[in-house]
């Protein structure tokens, strides 16, 4: 990261305090950083202490200059009370018992400190004043020695998410009939003082729809629905869940959630070219397969972080299970990487790849962002700058920024010995042509030079020729002047085309020929992986202020200190076992999944909860720190986390446990009295209604129209820019596959998906946003895609039930909603169809009459405004048009787009 980016990051850190704490400030502009102040400290009568009340304020505002660095402004160190009392160049900073005469308070009150724009709120100032006035007490004796940096205090360690996961006792709620699982007991127990209780169960069909969309993103076929509905046996719902979890569509649905977290993309980003990542899709397939197989999540984590260290190098003639483990490391290759696409500042680009990778790792598995600690100790969470570089040291042997490998050098070829021999043979053949090309090129340049020289006086020509053939860095001053005055002589391979297009074209022919020869090579398949070069272990340095140009002390690999048990910090042995590589990532992964890590299981179960309910138990799945939100039900979070681990890290077990609970099975409607008590549904007294994601909307449309191509895996479905500049799925056999298989090009997201909030992967996406705008409505009303699919849908309905209107409506309803229409809906729809059929017929009649008149009349008067190349609209039979319109309305309807 460059110094500049780092500054940006620092400002961002500061801004986060303001945004996060400044809730009370009203502003209609989402971009205006609230100037309201920090310091929302709960003082519930407890006496103010330095550790609990004052230090957090000073840490956020003052430690930058007065504590964190060895060089302290004014010689003042605010990290301990006794140091404040000792004071700096201006004398003691505090006079215990006399707040208003203490320098610390005065300088803050008078706005002199902090010197930048960000000032302390009145509340924070008051806290400091009151604390000094009350005698400036500390909670415990202060240490005699304090090293450099901000350090970790007992208060820091006490923060909820850094505590070990503790499985709570399940409250006795046996008297409540609504309780089905311990999840329900914990939630109901939390509700007990609020006057709330669970809503009644949702209707069977609603639940079926909900569970299906949730687990597969699709509805079962109408036939399957009636079969499921007919099953009145005791375990019918459990059976449904088992069936959905066993469906291969489960991996496609939940794989997409994980790909958001991983920041999946099929292109490198980081340059205008946005080069394509040809083999990234194997990671996408790995994710889908792993989820479908219910691969234990600890294994899933380990493979993604260190799959390469589970395979013996060299990575040749690989077995399928070895390939799978290597492909898993594609996770660590998801960050934007412009280093192979002509990034102008290579050093910055490489360090950005490392920083982004650490961000993805930490937000995915820790639910924490460590980026702030890149430049300095984190000001809000006890994440030290040394932690950041210890973690970086885990990954640096593979992401060695001094001996960088660009994306093309990070692939593993699946060539076998015979393939290699054949390829080498063909390469020799190509080399012959390449030599001819080189010859031609130098001749052409020489000829172009001669031609230019002819424009000069004969005596000058020799002089200039000699100047040209002299390497640029060896030219005399006089020779340099030749080119400064006659830039036309600066001919090179890059600009040869400007002098002689014919020659350039000929060179291109050589290239084509070489290309053609090479195309005869056996197809070379690659894996997109992260590996280490055995034996090469770079030293990781802490960068002063995050600037790679200012390396300081070397760092050993490790984790985040505050997350480790106090007595036994996590360290990695110098040489791990039999591995030829460092084994650092493997050791790190093993620590994450050891069951001792306080964050990993919590972060994972929280994400699963988030997808099932639309919001996590912790609202900020990527920030379990001080600036994130506290869990709405900490006991439930911990119960889920510990049970998840006890049940072998099985995601499918977790889904089923959650989905068989009453909380999931409730109706989604709002009961007015409960709504008044808890309008935000924090207690989950009803099931939230959820909008489906962009990809699922598209998939459902294809499914309903019968166009869906259900084939799985493989190279991404290509995309193209259409004639009006929209990015669309390229027409062809694969055009109607599920959206997860569409190429994710960072620079050109598919327009329709983007409209419905598909994230653009800059790093990764922790929570999707949901927008409601009229361009979405316009797409649902008028886009080619919708119109075509609506017609397909109508065609399917006619094919399946014939031309009678009533069965048509019923069938369309079943396909789109998984239920029959109500009587009112049926009646209204039949009226709609009849009316529309007549209307379209009458329209057609008018047109036919018109066009039957002077058929070959002169050019229409409005020729100038005639649209260019407008496709003559295909006109459907009136009844077909009416049914198509009905089908289109179903696509645009709430019931199609929401799971209730």
């Amino acid at each position, binding site marked *: 990261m460059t110094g500049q980016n780092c500054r940006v990051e620092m400002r*961002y850190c500061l801004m986060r305090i303001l945004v996060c704490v400044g809730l009370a400030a009203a502003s209609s502009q989402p971009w205006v950083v609230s100037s309201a102040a920090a310091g929302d400290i709960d003082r519930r009568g407890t006496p103010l202490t330095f550790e609990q009340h004052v230090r957090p304020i000073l840490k956020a505002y003052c430690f930058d200059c007065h504590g964190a660095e060895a060089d302290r402004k004014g010689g003042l160190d605010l990290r301990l009370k006794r140091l404040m009392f000792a004071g700096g160049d201006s004398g003691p900073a505090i006079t215990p018992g006399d707040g208003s005469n203490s320098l610390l308070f005065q300088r803050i009150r008078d706005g002199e400190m902090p010197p930048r724009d960000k000032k302390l709120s009145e509340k924070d100032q008051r806290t400091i004043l009151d604390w000094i006035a009350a005698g400036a007490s500390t909670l415990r004796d202060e240490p005699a020695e304090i090293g450099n940096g901000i350090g970790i205090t007992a208060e820091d360690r006490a923060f909820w998410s850094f505590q070990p996961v503790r499985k709570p006792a399940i409250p006795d709620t046996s008297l409540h009939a609504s309780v089905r699982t311990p999840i329900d007991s914990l939630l109901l127990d939390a509700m007990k003082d609020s006057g709330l209780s669970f809503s009644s169960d949702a209707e069977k069909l609603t639940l079926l729809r909900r569970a299906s969309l949730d687990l597969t993103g699709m509805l079962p076929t109408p036939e399957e629905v009636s079969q499921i509905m007919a099953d009145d046996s005791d375990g019918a719902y459990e059976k449904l869940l088992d069936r959905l979890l066993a469906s291969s569509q489960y991996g496609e649905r939940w794989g997409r959630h994980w790909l958001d977290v991983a920041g999946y993309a099929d292109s490198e980003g980081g340059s205008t070219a946005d080069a394509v990542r040809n083999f990234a899709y194997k990671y996408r397939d790995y994710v889908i397969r792993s989820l479908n197989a219910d691969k234990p999540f600890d294994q899933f984590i380990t493979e993604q972080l260190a799959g390469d260290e589970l395979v013996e190098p060299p990575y040749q003639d690989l077995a399928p299970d070895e390939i799978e483990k290597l492909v898993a490391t594609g996770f660590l290759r998801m960050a934007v990487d412009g280093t192979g696409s002509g990034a102008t500042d290579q050093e910055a680009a490489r360090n950005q790849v490392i920083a982004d990778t650490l961000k993805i790792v930490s937000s995915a598995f820790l639910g924490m962002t460590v980026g702030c600690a890149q430049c300095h100790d984190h000001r809000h969470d006890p994440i030290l700058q040394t932690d950041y570089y210890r973690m970086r040291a885990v990954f640096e042997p593979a992401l060695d920024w001094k001996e960088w490998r660009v994306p093309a050098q990070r692939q593993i070829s699946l060539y076998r010995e015979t393939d290699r021999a054949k390829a080498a043979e063909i390469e020799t053949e190509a080399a012959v042509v390449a030599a001819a090309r080189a010859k031609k090129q130098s001749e052409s340049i020489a000829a172009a030079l001669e031609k230019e020289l002819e424009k000069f006086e004969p005596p000058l020509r020799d002089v200039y020729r000699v100047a040209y053939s002299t390497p640029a860095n060896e030219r005399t001053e006089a020779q340099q002047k030749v080119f400064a005055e006659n830039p036309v002589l600066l001919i090179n391979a890059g600009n040869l085309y400007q002098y002689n297009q014919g020659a350039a074209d000929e060179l291109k022919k050589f290239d084509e020929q070489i290309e053609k020869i090479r195309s005869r090579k056996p197809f070379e398949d690659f894996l997109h992986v992260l590996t280490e070069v055995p034996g090469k272990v770079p030293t990781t340095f802490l960068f002063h202020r995050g600037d790679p140009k200012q390396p300081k002390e070397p760092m050993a690999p490790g984790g985040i200190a505050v997350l480790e048990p106090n007595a036994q910090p996590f360290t990695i042995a110098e040489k791990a076992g039999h591995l030829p590589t460092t084994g650092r990532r493997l050791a790190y992964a093993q620590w994450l999944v050891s069951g001792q890590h306080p964050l990993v299981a919590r972060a994972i179960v929280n994400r699963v909860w988030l997808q099932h309910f639309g919001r996590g138990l912790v609202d900020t799945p990527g920030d379990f720190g001080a600036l994130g939100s506290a869990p709405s039900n900490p006991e439930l979070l911990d119960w889920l986390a510990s049970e998840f681990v006890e049940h072998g890290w099985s995601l499918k077990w977790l889904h089923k446990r959650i989905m068989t609970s009453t909380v999931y099975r409730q109706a989604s409607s709002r009961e007015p009295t409960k709504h008044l008590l808890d309008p935000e549904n924090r207690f989950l007294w009803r099931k939230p209604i959820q909008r489906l994601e962009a990809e699922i909307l598209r998939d459902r449309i294809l499914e309903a129209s019968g166009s869906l191509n259900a084939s799985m895996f493989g190279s991404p479905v290509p995309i193209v820019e259409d004639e009006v500049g929209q990015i669309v799925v390229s027409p062809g056999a694969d055009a109607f596959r599920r959206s997860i298989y569409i190429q994710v090009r960072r620079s050109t997201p598919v327009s329709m998906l983007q409209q419905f909030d598909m994230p653009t992967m800059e790093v990764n996406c922790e929570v999707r946003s949901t927008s409601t705008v009229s361009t979405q409505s316009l797409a649902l009303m008028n886009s080619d895609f919708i119109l075509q699919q609506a017609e397909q849908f109508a065609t399917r309905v006619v094919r399946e039930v014939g031309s009678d209107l009533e069965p048509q409506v019923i069938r369309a309803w079943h396909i789109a909603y998984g239920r029959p229409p109500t009587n009112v809906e049926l009646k209204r729809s039949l009226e709609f169809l009849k*009316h529309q059929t007549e*209307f379209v017929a009458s329209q057609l009649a008018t047109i036919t009459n018109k066009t039957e008149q002077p058929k070959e009349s002169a050019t229409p008067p409005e020729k100038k405004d005639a649209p260019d190349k407008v496709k003559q609209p295909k006109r459907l039979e009136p009844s077909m048009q009416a049914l198509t319109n009905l089908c289109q309305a*179903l696509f*645009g309807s709430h019931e199609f787009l929401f799971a209730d």
Partner: protein
Amino acid sequence: MNPLCYSNPSRRKFLARGTFGVGSVALACLLQQEQALAVPSNVLLEPKVFDLTPKAPMLQPHARSLISLFMHGGPSQVDLLDPKPELSKRDGQSYDGNVVFSFFNRATKRLLGSPWKFKQHGQCGTAVSELLPNIAEIVDDICVIRSMHTDTNDHGTSIRKLVTGLSQPDRATLGAWLTYGLGTENQNLPAYVVLGDPGGQPTFGIKNWSNGWLPSIYQGTVVRAQEPRILNLEPPPHLKGELQRQNLDYLQQLNRDFLDRHPGESDLEARIAAFELAARMQVDAKEALDISQETAATCRLYGLDDPVTKEYGTRCLIARRLVERGVRFVQLFLPSQPWDSHTDIRKSLPEICRKTDKPSAGLVKDLKDRGLLDSTLVHWGGEFGRLPVSEGDPAKGGRDHNGEGFSIWLAGGGVRGGTTFGQTCEFGHRSVVDKVSQNDFQATLLHAFGLDHNKLTYIHNGQQQKLTADQPCRVVREIFG
């Protein structure tokens, strides 16, 4: 009284006349959305609501709408807006300045005086080339900035610097920032309209109006020269009108039924309102793009009576109609990069001047006549300028790229007319006095709209993003009245 009222009458009017009988629902839900915005979310990661409702600027704004006449390719400042007698005097002599070339095969150091005459015009006496006789007529209303520089000679890099703040790709463009910051006055029309040329896409296509990492609602909406004018705006002709109304009524009934089963879900209400907005957009956009009711005099003003100027004039006229109706930003593009005068500048430059001169001037005159120039800022300019030396043979050649000094002009929106700002060197090669960088330019434009470029921010990638990207820059306050 503040002449620029931000209370958004158009939107309220729309809500009062709900087409499909859900006006009150729509009103309730939109108000709810606004309230949702009024309380900032307590966590950065929580999904945020983005919309295009009008937002009050931070400072007293000069301008309410922006029209940018983008002159792709790099108009030659020394032949158009920046007279250089010294260059003419030393025509044909060798230039001893350090020149960065893009095209070496035709590169020379021979100074090329402008083949065209400059004359002072208006009360202010600003000198303009004979190639721009109509712009010459409006010099008292414009401010020519003669000291622009991007220090880049590559089209793409310079465009990115100019419209996105930095040379790196895929950042958000100026128009996206403007609509993100201010929303738009008329919810029935797109906030940011791009008027494309029937001759084809400008160089770099959709990147010119990209939202980058800003939410996609801030992307420019392309109004094409042919049908379909706005993408997805209308169904095929045979599904238009009454038929579509019936379809929409039917759909909205389905949606209201669902809402009845889930009362109080604001997202469902908002979605019903969004369909209604979409329907109004169809009507209003159609009306806004229809120039048939304009008087003959107005049409003549824009050159619609001349085949050479008719097409560009029509788009300039549409631009006026759009800002009149509350569109925040209208941008006109040209096909490819017609100002890229490498060869035969004597022929190519007059051609592109002919096409654009009268319509551009007509736009400013018309805005002024209608009292819209005070609140509308008009920008005319390209991504860089051209070299003072000849590219190739002086008689048939042209000029190569030059990002070290070039001219643009601004009119209206609080900018003082009849002025010039900044200077290039005596050859028009480098900006030397009161230099205006691309980031100064951006800060200044935002300032005209009451936006502080340092405070208009967006969190992306865990970083606080700004249009000016923390580059050293300043608001050029001197150009405002």
